[in-house]
């Protein structure tokens, strides 16, 4: 045993790396290698404590690791293998002692290395192989050559080396620290080490404390003669405890009541087979109304013909359908299977997707949101409006019967006389013409003005006296066409008395002789251009409206009384359009100076409007049609709303004129448009307040040519027949029947 190796193992070195292994080579592990590292530190201790160290080593080993006992043996042996026998031969440099088992134990002498030989020896041991990788020597026992050409043997590895290093002991009290005060290595004395050990072992560090003192039995089962305390025995020692009794009684009660049962080992569970359902769940069933929000899961639909294993042949897909089915995504397929004909039951294979489909059904049942959808099961036919049959709608004008040619330039206005035999027209050439309606023969013509166009012509209603009112320029002309075509034997009243009445602001004057000869009786100079004339039903009044922008509001509407040769300006405010309802004694605007109703047609430039002949009578509500330059034809039901009941947009260009059929027999109305066409509609109004007017488009009449962006300028209905007359910008009028 190395006497210097006193106490501590050098733990830090035990797991050393291999590069040092080259230095501590196996056989060459000479005294210098081993001890040179240790000698410096331990030299001072080594000599003096040679003999004592044995016991001390034992002691230290005891409280180091438990394995030390074994390692001690190893550590003893390894140096014996490796160290050369250096001292002189003959005299053995070891002692043989008996160890605990009675075996021989060799104790080797101390080796004293030479201080000066260190450097050269290190050089000698250096490996000289250079940069050659060490793995070249893998299969050899050596790893290279030293400076002398001797093999450097492979160092001991692993356990042997560990054991060796473990065996190397460091001097007593070695800490590896440096004392800062002295600058020397800090060593601890034996007492200090002992103190540290005690602290480490959680023992009382003070000197002289014996943890294993013999126990003095102060309180023992042996009765002493003298009591320890002189206090008298307390009463509770003799009286039974009430509290305890209470608790006991509680338990007794619980046991009696069966709340506490004696322990029973848990029984083995009976098998599931035995838990058969053995009672009627619905023995006392009570009907419960379904929750309002509950939607039961929809049942799967029953299979159809195409799902049969042997369907009718028409259900089998042809190759195109089959291909289409195969090419669609499984999610997009309408059916999840292709119909197939197996012909006989034995040929039917298993269905591949059975489990999958059932699984999807399960998913649907618990995962799919349920929505109650009301499915409309109505015959679509019932949604369609009830329309009168085409036969019911007849007659209506379908074809052009007569063309009236004669006007040069546009025909601005047409009007059929109340008897329905003659037609009056006025045009841009300043003439008013009267035609025979059926034949188209011109009967009468009068040139009212040279440069101004005739804007309006209107017959006086009633059959007793024929008066034709026409406007040309600023003037209103009242004419009685000559009687040679068999009518109006005497001059009308107005023309007879026209001289005496000159008091009203627009005085009624006689026209010039040529016109008088032609039949024009009176001229009313209005100073502003009147655009419309509306006669009262009885034929005594008519209203003119001057809608020009420069017209003052107060004179825009004037009422003319034929019998008095009088002109009045009833309104101060400006109004557009005009026309009394057909069977009212006075126009509504006159009887009620306030506005009756405001309509919101939604059209921007209203060209004309007309009031349904049955309006304000018992049989129907107030219905108005409005035509506008923005191509719309609006049907207003005044009882319904201020907004249009129907907005019809069938024209491509502006609508110039709209007109109801004046008699109640034919529920027709027509409009004339700049696209050269007329459109005839059926518009029947019932007295029933619940049903709305029925409007049916009937006919498009074409014939007028478009000249200068203008098509049909005016339209009028025959008073009794379903005939319409239109005035075109091409200088013709047409009768449609």
């Amino acid at each position, binding site marked *: 045993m190395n006497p210097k190796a006193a106490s501590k193992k050098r733990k830090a070195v035990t797991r050393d790396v291999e590069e040092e292994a080259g230095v501590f080579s196996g056989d060459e592990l000479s005294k210098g290698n081993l001890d040179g590292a240790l000698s410096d530190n331990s030299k001072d201790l080594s000599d003096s404590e040679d003999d004592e160290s044995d016991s001390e080593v034992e002691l230290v080993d005891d409280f180091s690791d438990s394995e030390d006992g074994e390692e001690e043996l190893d550590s003893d042996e390894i140096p014996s293998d490796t160290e050369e026998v250096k001292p002189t031969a003959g005299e053995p440099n070891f002692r043989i002692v008996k160890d605990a088992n009675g075996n021989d134990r060799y104790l080797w002498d101390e080796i004293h290395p030479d201080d000066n030989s260190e450097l050269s020896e290190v050089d000698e041991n250096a490996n000289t192989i250079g940069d050659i990788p060490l793995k070249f020597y893998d299969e050899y026992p050596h790893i290279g050559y030293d400076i002398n050409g001797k093999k450097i043997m492979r160092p001991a590895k692993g356990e042997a080396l560990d054991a060796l290093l473990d065996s190397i002991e460091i001097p007593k009290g070695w800490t590896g620290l440096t004392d800062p005060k002295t600058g020397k290595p800090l060593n601890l004395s034996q007492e200090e080490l002992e103190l540290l050990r005690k602290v480490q072992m959680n023992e009382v560090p003070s000197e002289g404390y014996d943890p294993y003192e013999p126990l003095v039995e102060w309180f023992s089962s042996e009765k002493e003669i003298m009591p320890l305390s002189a206090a008298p025995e307390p009463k509770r020692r003799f009286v039974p405890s009430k509290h305890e009794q209470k608790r006991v009684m509680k338990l007794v009660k619980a046991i009696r009541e069966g709340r506490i049962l004696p322990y029973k080992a848990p029984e083995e569970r009976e098998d599931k087979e035995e838990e058969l*359902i053995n009672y009627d769940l619905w023995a006392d069933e009570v009907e419960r109304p379904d929750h309002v929000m509950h939607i039961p899961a929809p049942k799967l639909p029953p299979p159809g013909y195409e799902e049969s294993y042997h369907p009718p042949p028409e*259900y089998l897909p042809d190759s195109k359908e089959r291909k289409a089915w195969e090419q669609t995504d499984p999610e997009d397929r309408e059916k999840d*299977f292709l119909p197939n004909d197996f*012909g006989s039951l034995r040929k039917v294979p*298993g269905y591949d997707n059975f489990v999958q489909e059932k699984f999807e059904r399960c998913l649907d049942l618990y995962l799919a949101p349920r929505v109650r959808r009301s499915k*409309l099961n109505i015959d679509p036919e019932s949604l369609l409006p009830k329309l009168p049959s085409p036969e019911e709608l007849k007659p209506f004008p379908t074809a052009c019967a007569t063309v009236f040619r004669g006007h040069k330039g546009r025909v601005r206005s047409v009007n059929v006389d109340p008897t329905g035999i003659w037609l009056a027209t006025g045009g841009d050439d300043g003439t008013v013409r009267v035609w025979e309606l059926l034949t188209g023969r011109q009967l009468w013509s009068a040139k009212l003005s040279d440069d101004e166009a005739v804007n309006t012509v209107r017959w006086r209603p009633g059959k007793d006296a024929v008066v034709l009112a026409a406007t040309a320029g600023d003037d209103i002309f009242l004419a009685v066409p000559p009687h040679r075509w068999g009518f109006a034997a005497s001059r009308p009243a107005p023309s007879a008395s026209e001289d005496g009445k000159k008091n009203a602001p627009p005085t009624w004057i006689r026209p010039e002789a040529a016109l008088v000869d032609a039949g024009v009786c009176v001229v009313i100079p209005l100073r502003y251009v009147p655009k419309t004339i509306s006669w009262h039903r009885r034929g005594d009044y008519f209203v003119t409206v001057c809608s020009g922008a420069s017209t003052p509001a107060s004179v825009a509407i004037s009422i003319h009384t034929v019998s008095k040769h009088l002109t009045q300006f009833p309104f101060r405010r400006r109004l557009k359009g005009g026309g009394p309802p057909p069977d009212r004694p006075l126009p509504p605007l006159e009887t009620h100076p306030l506005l009756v109703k405001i309509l919101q047609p939604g059209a921007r430039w209203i060209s004309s409007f007309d009031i349904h002949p049955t309006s304000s009578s018992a049989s129907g509500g107030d219905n108005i049609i409005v035509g506008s330059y923005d191509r719309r034809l609006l049907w207003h039901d005044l009882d319904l709303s201020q907004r249009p009941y129907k907005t019809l947009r069938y024209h491509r260009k502006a609508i110039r004129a709209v007109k109801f059929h004046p008699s109640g027999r034919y529920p027709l109305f027509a409009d004339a448009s700049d696209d050269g066409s007329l459109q005839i509609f059926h518009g029947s109004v019932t007295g029933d307040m619940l049903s709305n007017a029925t409007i049916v488009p009937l006919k*498009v009449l074409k014939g007028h040519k478009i000249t200068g962006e203008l098509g049909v300028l005016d339209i009028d209905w025959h008073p009794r027949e379903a005939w319409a007359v239109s005035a075109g910008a091409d200088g013709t009028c047409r009768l449609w029947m």
Partner: protein
Amino acid sequence: MAKIKKKGTSGAAKNYITRTQAVRKLQISLPDFRRLCIFKGIYPREPRNKKKASKTSTPNTTFYYTKDIQYLLHEPLLNKFRDQKSLAKKIARSLGRGEVSDASRLEKNNAPRLTLDHVIKERYPTFIDALRDLDDALSLLFLFATLPSTDHVPSKTVALCQRLCHEFQHYLIMTNSLRRSFLSIKGIYYQATIQGQDIMWLVPYRFVQRVNGDVDYRIMATFVEFYTTLLGFVNFRLDENGAELAAFTLEGRSVGDVPKALEASKAQSNGNSNKEVSKELQAKVDKVIKKAGLDQSTDEEMVETTDEPTDAIDHFEPAAPEADSLPQPAMSGNEAGALFAPFVFYISREAPKAPLEFILRSFGCKRVGWASVLGDGAFTHDETDPRITHQIVDRPQLPQESLPAIPAADEKAVQKVQPGARIPGRTYVQPQWVWDCINEGKLLRADLYAPGATLPPHLSPWVKATRGAYDPRATLADQEDEDEAEIAAEASDSDEEMEDEPAADDKPAAAEESEEESVDGGMDVAGTDDDESEEESEEDEDFGGFDEEAASESEDDDEAARTQHQKELEAEAAGLPFTASAAADEAAKKKSSKSKKVAAKKRSEDEELERQKMMMSRKKRKLLEKMMYSNKKTADESAKLRSKRRKLEKGEKGEKN
């Protein structure tokens, strides 16, 4: 001023709860929530306005009804789930420590047992409610009864499903409640009527089920767990009632072979690998039989007496196809029980025994025999038994010489009939005969279903003939639109002959118009000009007025007839024979004019429709179009089927010629 309402405290925001919120509120895991939902029958809802219901902007949110979730909070199953969870933790812990016996003890003794009785009572307050919801249960359980047992599907579950299904089938047999059945591609559909409720279910054919990867057996197992409990209770109730009911029905009829039949049915269930058909059920049935008296005397006296006045409802057939048909109740159990009662069936080896036996028995046949390879319990295993009246075979007809000769004579086993040979005195039918008979409710001609014969198509008994839909039972002529066939024939003719004159059929209005005039032969028809102008206007305008097409058409016809007559007269005057070719020409012309007439009529109808549509508001028009779309879809579908059939029939005719 009214108090300002806080957002999200009323209305949809309060009524609906998302799934995540629900799971959080119940404090369970998502799989547990799923199970709970399956058991309790709680399903997601679709709020009328999703935006109002959701507090987040996540688009795909599942909403539940808040009250549903609220009411789940007090569910006893919820505690069971929690117990299960804690037990699972304990078991995992002891397994982690390596204490396997401890874990197994825990699992054995402490596993909370889910009882779903209360859930079933809650979901189905009355027995009828339970019956109403039995469709899915039966379909799934019949599937599971045929599945092989795997680790997902324990054999115990499979056995339970098999037992329940057999019990149910047994009840149906006893009460003759089965009404209809259908052989489909997917499997066999059955429909039974129990206490007025129609129950339909699907049983797969006996093959190993292919399982795709994306089937979650845990979900199905949860459903199966619920459905087994449900069907268990239903069976119990049915058996209780059924015993009495069976007694009643059996008394009314002959009970000749009842014990045998019962044995057989028992054997049938035994044969299907389930050894314990419920014993008490058997006992009950025995009791019933005792009650019924067991009189063996009247054996085969069940002869239908048709002319007797009965209480039954007479069957009303509509005399004309146009009339509405009023619904009438289906056949009763007595009728069903009498269908196959007088016969003895023998099921050949290749025919599917289980469904056939089930159907035959539930339609009153008490004596079913089958080959011994198909299992025990048959009335007879002897194919030569002279009592057999019908034999169900499903094998192709082979020439006699190709069949193997009868094996040695000493082999005196049951199988001494040469396969394919006929034994005189019995009817041989294919299995489909049985299905078609029960669906029709009467015995059909057996010769149509003879072995080797091409079977008539097997039709689903559930499809009701509706107006406009294609009905394969009716003849083609009955359901065609007028002139459809002719047009089709013409079209096909022109297709077949030559593609010379496609204009006649393909091009509508304009071309026809010009042709029409040529037909007129330059005759001066009044209003031709008008027509032309009208046509123009139609082309130009958005709406066309009336055209007097129809009127002019009829006039044209008259004209044509007149001209023909005129020509005949002229020919007569000239002394020439009026050539047949000319007549044929005329006929051809007439024909084409007829098709034209149809087209014109259709066109005028379309115009009328357009005109009507124009007068509707946009909303209504949309609705109308939607409805017309769906109607059109069915109409197209049926038209397609009709055309296919027409083609097929034509092909057949061609073959005959």
